[in-house]
């Protein structure tokens, strides 16, 4: 009998999932607080002990694989030339690799921006700019600036290939650690992020894990192979596409409402569905991830105050009694472990989750814009058309623990006041009750078919 243990070192919890490979079943899950400040293995051992207590007949574990978003996850800065083009391409490469991208710069880096980069807490910098054969003056300028600054952060160079040799000359005799990869936008509006994503994962495995003090865990877990959000994206892609004779779900979306961010993953081309719609802008990734840092249930709860007015909030809060919007939001921000006690507070959490779903959807999906032409109305589409999304899967604390999570998820649907947003029209809603998506992304590296089967079985 062989048992695969899948480990997710999260920012709050270290989560374990045990899978019986031969019997093709999920044995169980457990979790314990992540202990990255002292010794990350303490939390792991505690979770494992708990797993053994809950499942006393747990056989010996034969294989382990792990992902991590502990110690702040993977933080990146994206630098490019034009905001809508290479900057966006660089940003998408980072997001697709499971990173958080809080710092984004376009055109020539200034002293002020270098200072911002120096002060920021960043693990890797992605430097892009210019199509192949296009502008190289800007990326060379930025490479020189970054060399001068010597930030002690690895730099991935994913810009105009014509500038590659000169960039190598710039960095060659400096302490700057750099990696030259394929251009993220080799041709205008063409997105090519595979090479950049691979190198991000490699740097994550070899350096970031160590810098964050999680390396010790590898004594027991083997190599930590990817950031957690990437594992979720891989699980989503597997679930959408299917594997061999096991069919997938088709176009789908995973929405993860967390304490600090709301992540949206969609799988599907999202091309325009009608002939009078013309696609504009940068090519969209087939597996797309966006992260909203101002939409969260606890750490970033305060940001809601500037996003919605108390009046707007009432549209999401489906109860009569008055609840002081600001006080309730601040209570959650100040006490991130807060759990709602009464019905009103529970409903308040639901309302916040509804806002997270609704707003993150507006930002993730494509939009259409009407153009009046002599040949009649035409439409521009920017972003993905997700109207045909078959399944919307909810994950993250608030959705997993709520009985009527599906009611919250309904916020992602097409809305009459947001007609120009290409939102799902009539999807089937599922909840990741056992919190297994990232684990299945990990399991899918070796046992894709089994991971697919288990997801189909356990998403309810």
């Amino acid at each position: 009998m062989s048992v695969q243990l899948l480990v997710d070192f999260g920012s709050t919890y270290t989560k374990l999932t045990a899978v019986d490979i031969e019997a093709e079943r999920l044995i169980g899950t457990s979790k314990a607080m992540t202990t990255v400040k002292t010794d990350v293995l303490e939390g792991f051992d505690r979770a494992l002990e708990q797993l053994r207590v809950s499942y006393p007949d747990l056989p010996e574990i034969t294989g382990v694989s792990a992902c991590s978003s502990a110690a702040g996850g993977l933080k990146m800065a994206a630098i490019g030339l034009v905001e809508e083009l290479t900057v966006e391409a660089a940003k998408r490469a980072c997001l697709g690799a499971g990173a958080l991208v809080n710092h984004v710069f376009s055109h020539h880096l200034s002293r002020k921006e270098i200072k911002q980069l120096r002060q920021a807490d960043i693990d890797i910098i992605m430097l892009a700019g210019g199509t192949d054969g296009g502008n190289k003056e800007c990326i060379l300028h930025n490479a020189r600036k970054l060399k001068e600054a010597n930030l002690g952060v690895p730099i991935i160079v994913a810009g105009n290939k014509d500038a590659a040799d000169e960039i190598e000359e710039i960095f060659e005799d400096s302490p700057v650690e750099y990696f030259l990869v394929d251009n993220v936008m080799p041709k205008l509006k063409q997105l090519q992020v595979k090479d950049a994503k691979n190198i991000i994962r490699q740097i994550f495995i070899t350096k970031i894990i160590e810098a964050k003090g999680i390396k010790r865990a590898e004594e027991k877990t083997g190599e930590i192979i990817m950031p957690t959000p990437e594992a979720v994206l891989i699980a989503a892609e597997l679930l959408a596409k299917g594997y061999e004779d096991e069919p997938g779900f088709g176009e789908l979306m995973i929405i993860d409402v967390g304490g600090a961010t709301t992540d949206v993953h969609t799988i599907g081309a999202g091309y325009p569905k009608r002939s009078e719609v013309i696609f504009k802008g940068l090519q969209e990734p087939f597996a797309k991830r966006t992260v909203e840092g101002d939409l969260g249930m606890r750490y970033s709860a305060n940001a809601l105050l500037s996003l919605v007015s108390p009046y707007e909030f009432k549209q999401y809060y489906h109860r009569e009694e008055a609840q002081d919007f600001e006080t309730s939001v601040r209570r959650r921000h100040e006490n991130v472990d807060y759990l709602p006690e009464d019905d009103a507070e529970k409903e308040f959490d639901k309302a916040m989750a509804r806002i997270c779903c609704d707003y993150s959807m507006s930002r993730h999906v494509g939009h259409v814009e009407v153009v009046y032409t002599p040949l009649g109305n035409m439409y521009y589409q920017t972003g993905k058309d997700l109207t045909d999304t078959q399944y919307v899967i909810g994950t993250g604390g608030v959705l997993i623990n709520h009985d009527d999570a599906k009611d919250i998820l309904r916020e992602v649907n097409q809305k009459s006041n947001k007609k120009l947003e290409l939102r799902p029209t009539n999807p089937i809603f599922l909840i990741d009750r056992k919190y297994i998506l990232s684990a299945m992304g990990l399991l899918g590296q070796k046992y894709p078919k089994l991971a697919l089967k288990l997801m189909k079985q356990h998403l309810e």
Partner: protein
Amino acid sequence: MKTVVIGVIGADVHAVGNKIIEHVLTEHGYNVINIGVLSSQEDFINAAIETDASAILVSSLYGHGEMDCQYMRENCEEAGLANIKLYVGGNIVVGKQDFKAVEQRFKKMGFDRVYPPGISIEDAVADLQEDLGE
């Protein structure tokens, strides 16, 4: 190899001429970045920045080109494209107007070359070769 950006500006969906221009310019050894129909000034400019283009060739067939091209030179300068060549051609004004006057108006707007209806793209190629020095 010189890079040129071509496209059809504004709410104009005339795609056939656009394809012919792409074909002919490519034949003549240019790296053609075709941003297609329904393109805004911003689309032209962004494409020119990223691809380091030497010229932008704007097409317009539906009569509203004059409106669509307003301040294009200024916008290029604002975006750092000071030395870019700007060409425009097609049915670029409303109705039938004296072309000399039209040409003058567009030149005043900062366009380097202005073409009347019915001209063949080969004529523009000769101008391109002269302007870009090839």
